C-alpha cells in the first residue's frame, strides 16, 4: 500500500462514513427541514471525499479532472436544490415538528 493508496483509502472510508451518517440522519430526524440538513450536507461532503479519494487512484490526469467536474457543480447546486425544496415544502403547508421552538417565518407578511 503506497502512501497514495493509504491516503485515498482513508478519504474513501471517511466519505463513505459521511454518506452513511447522512442516510441515518435522514431517517432519525422528525420533520422535513431537519432531514434536509442531514441529507444535503453530510452526503455532499461524503461525495467530495469519496471522489477525491477515487481521483487519487486514477492513472490518467484527465479522469481525475472529470471527477472534479462532478464535485464542483454538486457543491454549487446542492444548496440551491435544498433551499428550493424546503421553501416549497414550507410554503405549501408542511407542518413543523412539535420540537420546533419558534417559527420566525410565520410572523413574516408573506411567509406562508
Amino acid at each position, binding site marked *: *500500500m503506497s502512501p497514495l*493508496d493509504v491516503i*485515498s*483509502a482513508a478519504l*474513501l*472510508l471517511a*466519505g*463513505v*462514513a459521511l*454518506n*452513511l451518517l*447522512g*442516510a*441515518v440522519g*435522514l*431517517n432519525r430526524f422528525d*420533520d*422535513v427541514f431537519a*432531514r*434536509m440538513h442531514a*441529507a*444535503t450536507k453530510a*452526503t*455532499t461532503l*461524503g*461525495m467530495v471525499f*469519496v*471522489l477525491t*479519494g*477515487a481521483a487519487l*487512484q*486514477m*492513472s*490518467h490526469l*484527465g*479522469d481525475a479532472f*472529470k*471527477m472534479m*467536474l*462532478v464535485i464542483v*457543480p*454538486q457543491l454549487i*447546486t*446542492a444548496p*440551491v*436544490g435544498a433551499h*428550493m*425544496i*424546503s*421553501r*416549497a*415544502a414550507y*410554503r*405549501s*403547508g*408542511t407542518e413543523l415538528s412539535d420540537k420546533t421552538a419558534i417559527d420566525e417565518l410565520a410572523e413574516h407578511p408573506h411567509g406562508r
Partner: protein
Amino acid sequence: MIAVTNVALATITLSGLLCMVRLLRGGSLADRIIALDTLLVVIVSGVGILAARNNSPIFLDMIVLAALLGFVSTVTVARYIEKRGAR
C-alpha cells in the same frame, strides 16, 4: 485497495437502503424528494468507488450526468410542490 473498496461498497449499499427506507416511509412528498436526491448522491459516490476500484474511466461520464440530472429533477419537483402542496 480491493479490501477497502469492498468495505466502502458495502457501506454505500447500506446507506442506499437507509435512503430507500425513508423513501418508502416518507411523511410528505418533500421527504420523498430528499430521499431520492440523497439516494442519487449515494449512487454517484458508489460509482466513484467502482471507478477507483477498476481504474477505468468509463464510469465517469455517467457520474457527471447523474449529479446534474439530480439537481434538475430536485428543482423541477420543488416547483411542482409549490403549486400542488406537499401533503
